């Protein structure tokens, strides 16, 4: 099924455009890397706070409010630029297990982030209420950081594997 999808994308006009206009892929990749930088820097700050490794003077809720809009905005740009890259070279990505792993990790990171902010929406102090929740927030911070790092690692290795 994936092979059929790849074959279909390769037969479309947008695929030809991305393939033949030499600057599209480097420029789109550059925007992609800049957007990754926004996500990584803002999520690293939030995750370090969750783990209790800094920014202690700010509450988790205030940092989530400060950084999540950046992450969502950059994520939208990542999906757009990522789609252009897939249209240009569907065989390099869609059929590649590293790409599929990257998308799975991304899904997990989004779900974990939604759980984080969903709890904060009802109770701004939620993650600091009990010792158990404080441990849970640290685990969540570590998990999120590892997921984002994993996503970047997979992103780079798509070029080398498959």
């Amino acid at each position, binding site marked *: 099924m994936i092979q059929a999808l790849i074959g279909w994308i390769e037969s479309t006009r947008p695929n030809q455009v991305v393939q033949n206009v030499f600057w599209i892929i480097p420029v789109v990749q550059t925007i992609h*890397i800049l957007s990754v930088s926004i996500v990584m*820097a803002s999520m690293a700050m939030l995750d370090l706070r969750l783990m209790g490794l800094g920014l202690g003077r700010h509450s988790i809720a205030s940092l989530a409010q400060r950084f999540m809009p950046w992450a969502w905005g950059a994520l939208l740009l990542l999906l757009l630029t990522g789609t252009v890259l897939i249209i240009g070279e569907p065989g390099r990505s869609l059929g590649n297990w590293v790409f599929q792993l990257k998308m799975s990790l991304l899904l997990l990171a989004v779900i974990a982030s939604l759980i984080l902010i969903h709890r904060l929406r009802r109770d701004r102090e939620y993650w600091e209420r009990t010792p158990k929740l404080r441990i849970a927030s640290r685990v969540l911070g570590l998990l999120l950081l590892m997921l984002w790092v994993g996503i970047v690692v997979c992103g780079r290795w798509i070029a080398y594997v498959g």
Partner: protein
Amino acid sequence: MIDSFLQWLQETAPAVAIAESSWLFPTIETVHVLALTIVVGSIVMIDLRLIGATQRHRSVIELTQEVLPWTWIGFAVAVCTGSLMFTSNAVKYFANVPFRIKMILLASAGINMLFFHLVTYRSAHVWHMDAKIPPSGRIAGGVSLALWISIVGFGRWIGFV
């Protein structure tokens, strides 16, 4: 003289190991990308505050104190990994035009930052809470933003030449 130095450099044991291994270069490159995301992301946060685009209510001093230590850690890692990648094919990278432009832009970003810290930032205690900071600070932020976007662009381009 530089040619013989570059030739010597890429024949050193670590350089040869990186060039010949199937996984060393991609691994070092991946660490380089992780480091650069922290460097660029954190600098963009400060630059956007300086030009007054975001976080206008936040103290510039507080923001730089929170963010810059991470920027420097990331930068140190990026320099180490970047140097390792350079040694693996020193002669070719040195002749690579996007590589040369990137190095010039990096030096420019350094000068811009140095000027900001030694001159503009000295009076930061006066304006650090202002939504609109002095023009010299806003210019430094805009220049930095443009330089770092270009650095990422030319960095990516190195691999396409």
